[in-house]
């Protein structure tokens, strides 16, 4: 395992997973995992109905900081300051991952390409 993957594993096991377990114990779930008895609808009404067109700046540092800033803003607005705290680490990891990751050449046969 290279150092970047080791860092990813460490981040997940040491910080993300404990946070997940805490959320779970507090009854905070990010989404339904099964049908809800008595639900009248599963549609979510969109807050923003119009297109939001993001911009991301041109230099390396700005691009990465844009991403970091967007994560902080997004998670803070959602009411997850605990996730917002992770943003700088994720941003730093992104810089490392950029150096070692090549784009996928193959489309998986086994799972829908979701990321």
């Amino acid at each position, binding site marked *: 395992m290279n150092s970047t993957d080791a860092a990813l594993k460490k981040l997940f096991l040491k910080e993300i997973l404990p946070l997940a377990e805490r959320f779970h114990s507090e009854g905070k779930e*990010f989404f339904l995992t*099964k049908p809800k008895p008595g639900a009248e609808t*599963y549609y979510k009404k*969109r807050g923003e109905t*119009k297109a939001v067109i993001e911009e991301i*700046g041109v230099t390396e540092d700005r691009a990465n900081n844009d991403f970091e800033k967007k994560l902080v803003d997004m998670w803070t607005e959602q009411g997850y300051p605990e996730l917002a705290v992770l943003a700088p680490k994720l941003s730093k990891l992104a810089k490392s991952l950029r150096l070692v990751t090549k784009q996928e050449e193959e489309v998986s*046969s086994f799972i829908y390409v979701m*990321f």
Partner: protein
Amino acid sequence: MSNIILGISAFYHDSAAALLKDGEIIAAAQEERFSRKKHDPRFPHSAINYCLEEAFIESSEIDAVVFYDSPTLTWDRILKNCMMAGEDGLEQFQKAAHSILGVKIWVKDYVVNSIGSLGKLDRLLFTEHHMAHAASAFYPSPFKEAAIITIDGVGEWATTTVGKGSDNKIDLLWEIDYPHSLGLLYSAVTYYCGFKVNSGEYKLMGLAPYGQPVYYKTIRENLIDVKDDGSYCLNTEYFGYLNSLKMTNEKFEHLFGGPAREPETHILRKEMDLAASIQKVTEEVVLLIAGHAKKETHSENLVLAGGVALNCVANGLLLKENLFDDIWIQPAAGDAGGALGAAMLVSNMYFDVPRKINPTGRDTQKGSYLGPAYQYSEILAFLERNGFPYEKITDQEQRAEKVAQGIADGQIVGYFSGRMEYGPRALGARSILGDPRNNETQSKMNLKIKYRESFRPFAPSVLAEDVNDFFDLKKESPYMLLVAPVKQELRLQTSISEFWESEDDDMLNIVNQPRSDIPAVTHVDYSARVQTVNQIDNPDYHSIIKKFKDLTGYGILVNTSFNVRGEPIVCSPQDAYQCFMRTEMDLLVLGDFLLQKREQPEFEDKDNWESAYELD
């Protein structure tokens, strides 16, 4: 000064590029056609280069470059999914981190490396995935206003959206979010039936008529809760995609009585019945969503996009229901269309370029002939350089007569003409053509030309003016996105009912039975995925079908895509010649040039294509 927008989709599946000039579509193409790698997910360098060439512009003249997906929102979904998965989320987390943090948030680097700049705006724009789908459906449509439905596997969070478009504005009003996804449900059953996810879903659709929906109740009671408004929720306990790298899990297997079918093994009654069952569920949900869209928007028109909009059987039922006066579906309804949609969104909503509406009442997709054409001189140079014998017929009428005569004589024709199609369907620019009246055409084309599963049906191209001679179809279908029944009076009795009642799982017993007097394009349930061909969009192709009608009385041909199984549709004359020589096609048309197989030199196949093109 013109406004030029470049739209890009990449890094998931079916990467593509599209270019608009003052709101008009100038060019659009999928990367796979250039790279020769099916569903190529890589950054579409070649497609982008083509778009710039077609527009005769340098990259410095681009006003803005836009990507069709928001990596920030996608990362939000991924992280939260992995957290919900607990310890089991680690594998996905690592893989997704590489993909999003290592590649997708750096997409601007790929753009700059490709074209040297980010356009005059000097910033890379990002749209939301389903907004891009919605834009691809609404803006090129003929409608001033319409209800909009987008359904796919997943974008960032949204898997289904309902909204409305009016003039140049789009509002998406409701959505259903991951992990609840009609597209992922369909893909899960695709996987379980032994077909490839991300590419085999349409095979499941073609398999459905061989089965009965015996698993419908099992699916409805265990996998998905559907409300009257079409909204739905999956029971994720049965799916593997939340916490593993497979669509299904042991619980799913237990529900359906065993492990997934191994790919390329014999298809059994179980798979046929599963296909029929999931198709029925999908149709039901799509119809209910459409009902909701109608109720909430009061629109008389509907536009559709997202990968599930390629389910043309569901589309045909939707049309038949008469919920809407008219329906328009983006031909590149999957992720490739996101490039076009993103560009259109920026053109309309960011730069306020007036929306182009076709005054004739037709759409502005230009027949979806948006890819490269090859000039007479290029094709001639290719043929001369290689010493391939040809006959040159520059007169369009004479050429059409010769091609039509060949088809009527039983020849299978590779037809390469004009600009390449954008989207998964061949529409008479990169097509293999055959006689639909011949009962052996389907088997011959499947086994000797496409080298694919013999249960798979072929689709017809019919003169637009003659469509009601053959099919119960109330509107034009230029993009082969609607399935319609073959007219009752043309049908022949088959033993399909007995097949359904029996334990027999040999589909060839049914495939080989003539089902109508156009057997090659009549599926086992008497349906057909129709392309109506009009003189405006493709006069050359229309002319061939017209000449065939003059000879035979039938203004209809078999039209299948010009490729072998596992290969992308051909793009260049070289691709076409190679495919021609690797198969048992009889005649190749390259623009003004006709090549007879029997006259060609022995073909030295340098590429080990049978292993190079992975079975799809």
